[in-house]
């Protein structure tokens, strides 16, 4: 079959089972848009290319499939950058296709020419510029394979306009099934050592990270934890890999982790870390983190072992298989002493939810209770509300908690929620934003309205850049600067897109508004007014021990 480059791209997308793409057109990508017109692929026009990239990311996080976004050359391509970086930092499979000026103009500073492969080199797993239409299909197939295999990540394919219009022979191919690699025999010894260390541990602890979600290792982790009665903590990215309601779950660990979780990390003698890259927000002081304990690190990426912390035993490869083998080899032991310690911390830290005024922890708890027996995906933006959501939503299942962890990109939430709602249409997306971050990409309400997506957006409105204010409160002696936000009429903003919005300033009003929101079928916005000076607790000082909590003045 002889096809144009643009038609080849469409054929490759179909081959990969792509049903939805997020994008924004422009001159250099128009041939592809023309070919998409007749394709059985839904093109979602976002309000901004950053929105398209975050949407592809949210689609991938929620569904486990590769997300696809499309942009034109120059400004279209540069607008993808934040979205690609967010996907890269959190290892999310995204394929970005960008238009480029014709090959004859490359390097001449042509209209809307930017070196997007140069710009995105450090924030993609790999990228390509296709200069020969004969290689287009091969490169696209490879792009999908790179994005989704091993440690997933974004891949960008830059296609000059003349390559989209040139013709080449196209032979259909079925994507090969990803084979589940067995645990390499070379690791048998490390595995036995790890099993022995776990079996002998007095104070073992499992730390789940984002890689546990990506690898789909929840069942195996649960088997291991339950068999040996090992308590589990989660990083921000790992939430959902282990059910929050499980008796062995101690909560989130890290800078805003719970006291039982962080104390357990500090006190543990053996830590089994699954798919965590030991970010500074998780470890605090990297040296202190591992002192006096055996660290067993399971990850699909060998470069993560020993990258940030000293690992004693690194197990690399197929994460679920490794944990299954560990679980089979480990022996349960009486851990009564350890359990008593944990129980004590748990009791000391039990959270009292204030009900007299509207506050974010209460909102999160209320939503968790109201949505406990349904199918929901929770998506956040970045800031205080993100931490409150992580602490109090009690996430039960993998891929139902979507947050920008590594990059911490404000503006991620709404477009990611849009993408997620397309990715898992039978679940309902609940999106949380701050009043700051919502102003960054709030225009994607347009996309939600346009497709009548049933997203419930909750704006935690504290009239400030809350997380910034909190840092200034704690570390800059309350010298607040550039963090006060003037009130914005978010209901009018939502109304401009034809979206219903409600305002809640008390727990009662919020409960009413949320009940109404659950009954609506389209997009809905709830503006939840909370106090400006509420702070996220607990909190540790970056760069210190995980159990060194600040006492907030």
């Amino acid at each position, binding site marked *: 079959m002889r096809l144009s480059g643009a038609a080849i791209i469409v054929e490759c997308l179909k081959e990969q089972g792509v049903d939805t793409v997020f994008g924004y057109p422009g001159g250099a990508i128009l041939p592809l848009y023309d070919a998409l017109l007749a394709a059985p692929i839904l093109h979602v026009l976002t309000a901004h290319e950053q929105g398209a990239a975050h949407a592809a990311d949210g689609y991938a996080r929620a569904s486990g499939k590769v997300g696809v976004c499309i942009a034109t050359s120059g400004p279209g391509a540069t607008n993808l950058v934040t979205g690609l970086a967010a996907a890269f930092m959190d290892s999310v499979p995204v394929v970005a296709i960008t238009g480029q000026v014709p090959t004859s103009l490359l390097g001449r500073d042509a209209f809307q020419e930017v070196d997007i492969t*140069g710009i995105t080199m450090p924030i993609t797993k790999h990228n390509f510029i296709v200069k020969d239409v004969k290689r287009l299909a091969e490169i696209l197939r490879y792009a999908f*394979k*790179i994005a989704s295999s091993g440690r997933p990540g974004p891949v960008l394919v830059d296609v000059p306009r003349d390559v989209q219009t040139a013709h080449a022979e196209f032979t259909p191919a079925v994507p090969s099934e990803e084979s589940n690699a067995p645990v390499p025999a070379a690791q048998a010894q490390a595995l036995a050592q790890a099993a022995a260390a776990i079996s002998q541990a007095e104070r073992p602890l499992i730390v789940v990270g984002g890689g546990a979600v990506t690898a789909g290792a929840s069942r195996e982790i649960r088997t291991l934890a339950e068999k040996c009665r090992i308590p589990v903590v989660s990083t921000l990215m790992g939430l959902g890999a282990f059910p929050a309601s499980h008796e062995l779950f101690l909560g989130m660990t890290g800078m805003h982790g719970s006291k039982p979780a962080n104390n357990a990390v500090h006190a543990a003698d053996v830590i089994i870390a699954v798919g965590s890259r030991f970010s500074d927000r998780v470890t605090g002081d990297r040296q202190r983190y591992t002192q006096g304990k055996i660290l067993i690190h399971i990850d699909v990426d060998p470069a993560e072992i020993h990258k940030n912390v000293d690992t004693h035993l690194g197990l690399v490869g197929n994460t679920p298989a490794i944990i299954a083998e560990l679980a089979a080899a480990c022996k349960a032991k009486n851990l009564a002493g350890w359990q008593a310690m944990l129980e004590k911390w748990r009791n000391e830290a039990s959270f009292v939810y204030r009900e007299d005024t509207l506050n974010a922890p209460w909102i999160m708890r209320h939503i968790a209770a109201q949505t406990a027996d349904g199918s929901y995906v929770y998506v956040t933006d970045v800031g205080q509300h993100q931490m409150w959501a992580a602490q109090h939503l009690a996430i039960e299942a993998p891929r139902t908690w979507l947050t920008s962890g590594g990059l911490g990109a404000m503006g991620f939430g709404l477009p990611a929620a849009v993408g997620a709602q397309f990715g898992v249409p039978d679940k309902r997306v609940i999106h949380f934003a701050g009043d700051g971050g919502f102003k960054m990409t709030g225009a994607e309400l347009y996309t939600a309205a346009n497709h009548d997506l049933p997203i419930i957006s909750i704006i935690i409105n504290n009239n400030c850049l809350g997380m910034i204010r909190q840092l200034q409160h704690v570390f800059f002696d309350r010298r607040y600067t550039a963090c006060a936000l003037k009130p914005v009429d978010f209901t009018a903003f939502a109304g401009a897109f034809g979206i219903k919005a409600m305002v809640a300033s008390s727990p009662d009003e919020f409960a009413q508004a949320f009940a109404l929101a659950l009954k609506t079928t389209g997009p809905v916005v709830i503006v939840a007014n909370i106090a400006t000076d509420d702070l996220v607790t607990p909190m540790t000082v970056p760069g210190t021990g995980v159990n060194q909590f600040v006492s907030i003045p």
Partner: protein
Amino acid sequence: MKHVLSALVQDQPGVLVRVAGMFTRRGFNIESLAVGRTHIDGYSRMTVVVSGDHSVVEQVIKQLRKILEVVSVQLLSDSPSVTRGMALLKVNAGERRSEVLKLAEVFRANVVDISEPTVTLEITGDDEKIRAFTELMAPFGIAEMVSTGQIGLKRGSATIYQFRECGYYEQNVL
């Protein structure tokens, strides 16, 4: 501590930028980086000299392996290997030309050009030899100098191809 690494890479556009970019971004210290073609079309070989302790080199190797065009990585400095670099030195020999030529002979440096005041010498050898020769020439006055990065191979029959032979695009896509 200095380590010499050899990488077999696919000859794709941008591969040098990708490798060099990784080194800068991750804060690894490269002393030299040399790239050149091999006897097999489509492949280049890079020799990188990095400084750092053992754990740094381990990270460097792992990060190199994550780059898709990198087919195979070999640590040369952990077993007997040969490394060589080359330098060209333009020395202001003036009246002392015979002295310079004598020293050049001791170091087996070739004379590649002679002009009224200058002698241009070509020297090949490991880092230390080139450094020693440069220091020796310094008092005469070095007008200009250029040197290549070190390149190297393991001694004996072992080759980089025995480490991991991968076809085009058939790599471990971590």
